[in-house]
């Protein structure tokens, strides 16, 4: 393989990896605070693309405005989801919450199918981002560079929020032990709502860039990216934001490289993530950067 082709694959891998990472951070935040796998995260991701699609096509908004609106609507959706499907079950057995999460995901998928139709729609193109530029003999979409930059900006913003602000401190307190945090004067419900809003915002940003990169949207499109982002979060050590980032990159680059170096295995592309996940879990049961969980009797 020529070096320039390799670089192109690497750039693609990094940009796919950053998308996974963005969505994975949302998973990790929710898991960190509630110890809940938010199965509906992938479907929130899907809803964003439809919000943006209708903003541009039906309401004729300029793309940036419709993207911003889509992000805001998605954040609201995340908050509503938490209040409706997870809050009533906060003290219920864990399995009920997980079922509720799967149920919410199922409901969103079916609702989207009824509302938006099952047929694929074309996501609006944004010339400023989807144009290609020529570097030497390789042509690469501008988006390929934009995605990692956006991801890094959000990552640093989030790290600042979590470690330097009062909201972040409340989030960390709730993540540690929400009952005690509540006794100490943290508004637990509000903090969890904020966590969901931020998590959904990251999913929304990821979804918009996903839509630009793979411009075809269907109601079930959130499942695979959702699962893979989740796997990325677990590989990195769930509950850890930097871990989610690392996991996302490993997964994205790995996937692209498998297809690039062994085209005969490209059918197994979706299995790669799972195989990798299982191998990691068997050797490091809490992920690459995960802390050891103390056993309580």
């Amino acid at each position: 393989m020529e070096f320039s082709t390799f670089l192109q694959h690497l750039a693609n891998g990094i940009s796919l990896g950053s998308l996974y990472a963005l969505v994975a951070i949302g998973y990790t935040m929710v898991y960190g605070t509630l110890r809940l796998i938010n199965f509906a995260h992938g479907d929130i991701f899907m809803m964003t693309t439809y919000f943006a699609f209708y903003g541009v096509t039906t309401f004729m908004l300029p793309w940036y405005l419709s993207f911003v609106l889509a992000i805001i609507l998605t954040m609201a959706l995340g908050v509503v989801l938490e209040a409706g499907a997870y809050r009533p079950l906060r003290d219920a057995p864990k399995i009920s919450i997980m079922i509720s999460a799967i149920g919410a995901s199922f409901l969103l998928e079916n609702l989207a199918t009824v509302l938006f139709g099952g047929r694929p729609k074309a996501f609006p193109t944004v010339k400023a981002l989807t144009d290609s530029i020529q570097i030497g003999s390789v042509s690469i979409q501008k988006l390929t560079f934009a995605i990692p930059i956006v991801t890094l900006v959000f990552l640093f913003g989030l790290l600042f929020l979590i470690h330097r602000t009062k909201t972040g401190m409340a989030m960390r307190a709730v993540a540690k032990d929400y009952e005690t945090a509540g006794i100490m004067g943290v508004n637990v419900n509000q903090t969890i709502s904020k966590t969901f809003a931020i998590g959904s915002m990251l999913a929304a940003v990821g979804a918009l860039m996903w839509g630009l990169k793979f411009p075809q949207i269907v109601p079930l499109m959130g499942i695979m990216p959702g699962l893979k982002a989740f796997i990325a979060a677990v590989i990195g050590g769930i509950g850890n934001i930097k871990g989610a980032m690392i996991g996302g990159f490993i997964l994205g680059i790995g996937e692209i490289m498998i297809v690039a170096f062994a085209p005969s295995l490209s059918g197994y592309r979706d299995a790669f993530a799972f195989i990798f996940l299982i191998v990691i879990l068997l050797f490091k049961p809490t992920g690459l950067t995960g802390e050891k969980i103390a056993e309580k009797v």
Partner: protein
Amino acid sequence: MKQKKTLLTLIVILILFAFVYGANQFLDPYKMRILNLCAIYVILGLSMNLINGFTGLFSLGHAGFMAVGAYTTAILTMPDVVKTQNFFMVPMIKPLDTMHVPFFFALLIGGIVSGVIGYLIGAPALRLRGDYLAIATLGFAEIIRVVFTNIQSVTNGALGLKGIPVSANIWWTFGAALVTLLFIGSLINSSYGRAFKAIREDEIAAESMGISLFKHKVIAFTIGAFFAGIGGGLLGSLLGTIDPLMFRFLLTFNILLIVILGGMGSMTGTIIAAFIITIGGEALRFLDESMTIGSLVIPGISGMRMVVFSALLMMVVLFFNRGIMGTKEITWDSIAAKFSKKSLAKGGDKQ
């Protein structure tokens, strides 16, 4: 008393046979299809309840095991002609293309292959706990599906298999459901069953009482996988066609719902829930068709059924999260207690 109970059980089984006979004679094919599906979901629900409800292992790999059972059974029962018709893209590999066994043995082999794969997956994965086990088993089920999509010379890939001989009828499905019930029921009431429940309640306490965690977890997982394979084989044979897309996570979710609705750790609950969910899903079909009320015509929205169905399920999870039965069972004792109302001091049951 014990003889009396056995007699009562036999009577119920006879009534069931009479019911199956009657259904076979008088019901139309559509209703028969639903009844068959109910019985298959009873098998699947019971096998998943053994793993998730009784042993407390949160496993989401059922669709994968079903796929293994369904494909094995289908490949072993399809006639040569149908096989060559199916495999027009890539011919089938050598020994499989002319291999045949009767339906019963094909089903059994399907279950065994699925059980073996369950063992191979379970042995390493059962070191994980809770959410991590759930994710790993979900991953295994997806891997099985991706592999089945890609090994075209064995499974015909994404095209799936068509023209599988329809050997499963109501006798097969209800018979298999009964065998599953009796087998898992006696397993649960044996010393193994008590060990499973001990592991569910508290792993560490169970281990310090001398229960081998690994052994019992693997046993529950393998037996669950075996019956999932049987259920898958019956489903494939009933529908006459299978493809990898059938065995997505959604299928596991359906079975999980049956287990949750019935109550984690209640076999009778699972049976009731299997019937409710299967029949309920069909009963909501009117939502997809247009309705006429007086002069008002409400156009049908296809897909509405699934929205209402999933919304109802969300309600169930939110408002009765212990399911219909919790961990209780309907047994002869509990029925007798309902009627006799013995006082607690005389050994009556607290109901």
